[in-house]
């Protein structure tokens, strides 16, 4: 995991040194400046040092002081700006996923149990539409309807809890659909398994079979999907925050990109990446608890088998 984070650092550092980037000095100094002023700022930013030194300095700063650099725009530490905005984005994403999880799972179970019925058909089609629908359009439509026409919910203030509703709902549209479809697909597979037949032959009620046998086995892909959706919603936050004028991390990133504020971009991407990595690690730990086989797999298996198992998990994560 740490290797991945290091890799990300290298990656975004390389991006920031890419040719297309606007000269940071000009951002700070503006349009008119003397050669002296230019050199001064250039030296101040440490841009005259060899690239490797700059990089190592940067990494060191991140690791030891959590210092993500200084914003060209505001001349303040990126970490303070970013970390101030991060909770807001996180709140909305979590809220969205928290709404989606129970609804999605329930709908998925219903669809699976009543496969091929009109209800299943409806749920499937609606979730397909929900998954495909671009959420920025949904956001705008919701705003037009709820805020402008009905004047029920605010479109852009986060003053109270009501401000969270529309953004969270918008962000929830994809997770609900994806979780529904994933639950449905997984449940369909699980209820065809032999051990379900065994459970039935023991005389257990359908309800017991569902909750104590089927769901626990279906959990793993669903949990994977939840983790995936958390990562995805955080990533997709940029557009939503833009529309709802929410001062979140995604909006900050876009703003920084447009302002050519390279340290800010670097720091924000790093933060996102760190978050996704943490989510993945948490998921891995969670698997060990849910599925005893996974715990066993990490004790003694051939390297190929381990590779395959890891790949299956990771592919399953992106499968929707």
């Amino acid at each position, binding site marked *: 995991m740490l*290797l*991945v*984070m290091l*890799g*990300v650092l290298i*990656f*975004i550092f*390389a*991006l*920031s040194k*890419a040719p*297309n*980037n606007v000269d940071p000095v000009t951002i700070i100094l503006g349009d008119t400046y003397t050669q002296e002023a230019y050199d001064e700022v250039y030296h101040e930013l440490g841009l005259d040092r060899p690239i490797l030194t700059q990089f190592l300095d940067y990494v060191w700063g991140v690791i030891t002081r959590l210092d993500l650099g200084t914003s060209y725009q505001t001349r303040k530490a990126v970490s303070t700006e970013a970390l101030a905005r991060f909770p807001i984005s996180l709140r909305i994403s979590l809220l969205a996923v928290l709404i989606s999880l129970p609804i999605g799972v329930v709908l998925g179970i219903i669809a699976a149990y009543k496969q*091929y019925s009109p209800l299943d058909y409806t749920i499937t*089609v609606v979730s*397909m*539409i929900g*998954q*495909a*629908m*671009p959420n*920025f*359009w949904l956001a*705008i*439509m919701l*705003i*037009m309807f709820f805020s*402008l026409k009905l004047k029920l919910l605010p479109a852009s203030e986060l003053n109270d809890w009501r401000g969270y509703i529309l953004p969270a709902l918008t962000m929830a549209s994809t997770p609900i659909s994806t979780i529904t479809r994933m639950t449905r697909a997984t449940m369909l597979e699980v209820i065809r398994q032999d051990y379900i037949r065994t459970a039935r032959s023991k005389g257990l009620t359908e309800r017991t079979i569902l909750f104590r046998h089927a769901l626990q086995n279906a959990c793993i892909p669903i949990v994977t999907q939840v983790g995936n959706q958390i*990562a*995805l919603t*955080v*990533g*997709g936050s*940029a*557009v939503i925050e*833009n*529309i709802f004028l929410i001062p979140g991390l*995604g909006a900050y*990133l*876009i703003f920084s*990109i*447009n302002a*050519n504020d*390279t340290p800010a*971009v670097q720091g924000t*991407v790093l933060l*996102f*990446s760190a978050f*996704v*990595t943490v989510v*993945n690690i948490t998921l891995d730990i969670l698997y060990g608890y849910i599925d005893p086989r996974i715990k066993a797999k990490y004790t003694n298996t051939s390297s*190929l088998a381990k*590779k*395959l198992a890891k*790949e*299956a998990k*990771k*592919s399953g994560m*992106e499968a929707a």
Partner: protein
Amino acid sequence: MMETTALDRKKRLNTTSGQFRIALRQFRRNKIAVVGIIIFLIIVLSCVFADKISAYDYAAQDIRNKFAPLSMEHPFGTDQFGRDVFTRMLYGGRISLVVAFSAVLLSAAVAVLLGTTAAFFGKAYEMIVMRIIDILQSIPGLLLAAAVSTAIGTGIQNSIIAIAIGQLANTTRLMYSATLTVKNQEYLEAARACGASKTRIIFHHVIKNILAPLIVQVTSRLGSGITQIASLSFLGLGVMPPTPEWGSILNAGKQYMRSYWPLVTFPGLVIALTLISVSFIGDGIRDAVDPRLKR
């Protein structure tokens, strides 16, 4: 009097062309997928023949006519510069679709190359490639594309590359695991007698094994490709005005949301319809190709 046994039937079905025919038949049966294809074709063809369908020039400004009410001449209304929205959508579609298609295909090509070789040659090369993929995968897709845009710039070509990189990790991983499973089997078979053209056998089997998930992946990635280019343009990256593109049109419309709703509703509607139809098609393909789902 003996009917064709199950064995004969299986033999016929196991050829590649046989499987293709089955998949096609299954696809046609899927009503949703058929609807998806129809809608998608309508949209694509409209964009391709934009100049035949609409007489307007998408860049022609007519300020006096801005925010015109909906009519036969302006079924989608006009924007803040008096340009016909319908026309801009048609031409914009060309950009959006071309960028999305190209990005997805580019991404797929690189992914196949990277993924299969990584699984095949193993050792250090595999580790390096997959670590890079891990790194890429830890940055959410849209953000990755946006970040890459900062490095290489905006515009059509650069957007294609940026989006392709954004989608690369996912597809590569898929190709990698698909090849891994074949690799596991092939050593057993290849170890047997028929030594001649072992490489060819492996090649053949690898292609067969990755073809199905690849097709499914490409069709499903197309939707997110369209979303991403639209999002990028929406956010001010991607394609720059005055070049029409669905996302940037929507972005402009957002400002006038309160006063003039068509500018925001119709572009979004078209995007939504396209995405939904692509999604239906993708699902239909997935169902047709996956042998496990039989009634």
